[in-house]
């Protein structure tokens, strides 16, 4: 097992380098130039299609000076090598926007995004797993069909539309005022508040984003659950258990559920990067200062170091997630034995 882990870790290195190379190239070869963007007056100009003027010439010189300051005048392979070299020492460089360390910018936003995503994942699992069990045990009943339909309808509703509707209708405009339309805490939020009041305020703010972030996840997970439950239920040992005269409840929860959870473990691989990746749409619509918002703003501003850092972090988490789920599989399923010769 130990040897297997070491092997896998070494295999991660070329994969990782490959992934970052692709990410680096995509970012740098995509059209658009951060220097030009700044010279034209930043993102405000892009929004309005307007350029500011009255500069007294010499803009080209300024452009090349700016590129030089950020090392963008060097050939791409060298830029990549420098970037990779810094990465080894965990130095993600400095943002083009404010010369601040990219690492600090990310760390600053991690708690918000993690909070949002953990809550939403919990919600998804709490609802989807029972839903899947119900669908499997009552397969093809009316209840199964209705839950399936509802799950798929929710899956099909575009998030951006749902979020906008929620803001317009239940966030205090001309209609109901049930939830706040933006931010994570009230305007007068203060650290002097009692813990209870703080929690209440934060819960009130985070409720709607969490629900919106979760609703489209029910369909996928409950389907997975249903399918693997049904598969296990068709197997001989389940028949055996029933034949022994065990109660149906015991058959389902003790024998079927446990075995059908094994495939769910692999889903862990996709959860880990998702925790950090965050939701660009929800964070932007609800003005939540998390990593999704940071990524979105950085892509628009062509802030290469920040985008690449976010990309790298999620690449690492994906790779680690895959590794962990492989190992977990061995733990939960003793039939799998890594690295041992047959």
């Amino acid at each position, binding site marked *: 097992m130990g040897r297997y882990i070491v092997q896998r870790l070494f295999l991660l290195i070329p994969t990782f380098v490959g992934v970052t190379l692709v990410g680096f190239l995509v970012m740098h070869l995509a*059209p*658009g*130039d951060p220097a*030009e*963007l700044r*010279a*034209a*007056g*930043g*993102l*405000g*100009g*892009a*929004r*309005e*299609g*307007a*350029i*500011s*003027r*009255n*500069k*007294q*010439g*010499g*803009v*080209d*010189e*300024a*452009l090349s*000076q*700016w590129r030089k*300051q950020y090392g963008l005048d060097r050939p791409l392979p060298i830029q990549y090598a420098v970037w990779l070299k810094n990465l080894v020492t965990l130095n993600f460089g400095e943002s083009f*926007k*404010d*010369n*601040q360390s990219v690492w600090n910018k990310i760390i*600053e*936003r991690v708690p918000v995004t993690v909070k949002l995503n953990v809550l939403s994942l919990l919600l998804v699992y709490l609802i989807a797993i029972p839903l899947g069990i119900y669908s499997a045990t009552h397969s093809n009943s009316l209840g199964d069909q209705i839950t399936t339909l509802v799950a798929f309808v929710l899956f099909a509703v575009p998030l951006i539309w749902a979020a906008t509707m929620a*803001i317009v209708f239940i*966030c*205090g*405009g*001309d209609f109901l*005022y049930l939830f*706040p*339309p*933006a*931010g*994570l805490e009230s*305007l007068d939020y203060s650290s002097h508040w009692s813990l209870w009041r703080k929690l209440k305020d934060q819960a009130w703010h985070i409720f709607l984003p969490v629900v919106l972030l979760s609703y489209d996840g029910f369909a996928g997970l409950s389907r997975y659950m249903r399918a693997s439950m049904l598969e296990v239920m068709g197997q001989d040992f389940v028949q055996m258990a029933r034949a022994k005269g065990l109660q149906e409840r015991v058959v389902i929860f003790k024998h079927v559920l446990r075995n059908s959870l094994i495939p769910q473990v692999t889903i862990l691989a996709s959860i880990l990067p998702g925790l950090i990746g965050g939701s660009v749409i929800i964070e*932007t*619509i*609800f*003005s939540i*200062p*998390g990593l999704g*918002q940071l990524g979105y*703003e950085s892509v628009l501003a*062509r802030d290469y170091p920040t985008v690449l850092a976010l990309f790298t972090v999620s690449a690492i988490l994906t790779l680690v997630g895959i590794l962990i789920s492989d190992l977990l599989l061995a733990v939960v399923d003793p039939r799998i034995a890594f690295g041992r010769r047959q």
Partner: protein
Amino acid sequence: MLKGSWRLLLSLFLLMGCRGGETADTENRSAPPIVAKQEATTPVTGDWLVTHALSDPEQLNPLTSNDATASEILSFIFQSLLTRDPRTLELKPLIAQSRPIVSEDKRAYTFKIRRDVHFQDGRPLTGEDVLFSVKAIKCPLVNAPFLQVYFNSIIDAEMIDEYSIRFVTKEPYFLNESVLGENVLILPRHYYDPENLLKDVTLRDLLRDPSKLPDKVKKFADNFNKNYSRNPVGSGPYKFEDWKTGREVDILRDPNYWGNSKPGIDQVFLDRIKYRIINNMDAALVTLKSGSLDTMDLTPIQHTRGTNSERFKREFQKLEYFAPSYSYIGWNNENPIFMDKRVRQAMTYLTNRRQMVKTLLFGLGEVVNGPIFFFRPEYDKTLHDYPYNPDKALTILREAGWKDSDGDGILDKIINGKRTPFRFEFKVPSGSSTGKSIILVLQEELKKHGILATVRELDWTIFLDDVKNHKFDAVIMAWAMQASEPDEYQVWHSSQAANKGSDHISYKNARVDRILEDYRREFDPKKRVKLYREFQEILNDEQPYTFLFARKSVSAVQRRFHGVEVYPAGLRPQEWWVPRSAQKYARETMLQ
């Protein structure tokens, strides 16, 4: 308050007004009835203004920041030698005792500095700070190349005594006073260069090869670039309090502001200005309605729908003002089709600009016929208007030799011995929905007359690149400018057509070149107006652009604020105040 020209885009979000409120405030603006009459006339301090920002400022370093939100916040924290009177737009002294003394050869400017000014940390402001601020801008290692472009003409600066400073410029240019007076934000030397590393470095030293600069300059620049992004200190009436990333930026009224109750210095009243960052305009409007924002800029659609209920009108007033900018269609003057000025004139006749203002801008705009902000005295109101007139357009095109000779439904003409159909491409930045709509309307109109126009949408930076390299037939764009004295050299002088200059349509006219050059050297405003009248007449005849319109912005402001006025230079929240009985937020415990 708009400071230097480098913060131009501010104008697109903030507030430029029309004169005397001709169009301002379509609604009744009475004070809330609960406020007693006397109370409503004497400004008092207190209360907050909670205002909207669409995104975080990039950073709050006054030299290296480059975005509109930051410029606006910094304009409350920092001050310059001169400022503009909000009504007349004339320059007037602020940190300087008076406007500068200009030397005989019009190249040297001497400013005398007030002796009673101190920074927010209590230390006095002297000529040393002014000199340092200019040196910091000129320092090639400071990460502000796009700001430095404005200061190319400044070649020397020296202190005459502790409170006077003399600048030397490359050549006589009437806007140098504004560059020095308005664009140099005065930074406290003791704060931004605590080790006084620039002390022995003269401004002339900084103009030399950057690689030969002494190490201490490099040390200064590194420190300056990195460590002053979120902690500005200046001499202005508001001091920086807090910035929670992605949430809010707070500035507080400085109770020890040097200008407190000084005659001729603008007073401020609101204890706190809070910028709430809300990335989404719908959410912002909802927030405004729920009472957690006091003011925001509305989009045209929000103005026409969604802010007209009785309840909204009871709580908010809406103010309209012009942003000093104009939209235009640029015809590539080197394109064989558009080389002929008659074709360009015809295109303008075919563009129904009034209808576009009405339907696409919901009436929030004004048709313009020239490149100058039309509230400026330089703007010529007598220019030919080119009203929508397809018949006239077709007559002109026929005179110019365009007809459908091969019967394929598309006009054509023999150009350079080749039959050329009237077919071209519009390039549009994909972010600009108004631009797209305009082109679609125009495309439809042109099709009726046998002119085939295709549309290509491009990402902003790619669009800019094509524009700079003159790779287009026609583009739709806008120029953002200032409400102060115009200088059109950058856009229309033939020298700017080369080397990726701003004359991206390759407009060339010898007489115009001459006018633009003379204008820059002319220190008499009346003569400048005369020069620019002639310039506009030439443009009006040649139609290198089809000038479209200047857009209006609309802001909603909560009615508890008094002193809300629309100036030619925009709304000025620093003048607003709230009568005591209507104050919403608790009085601040002023921290020293």
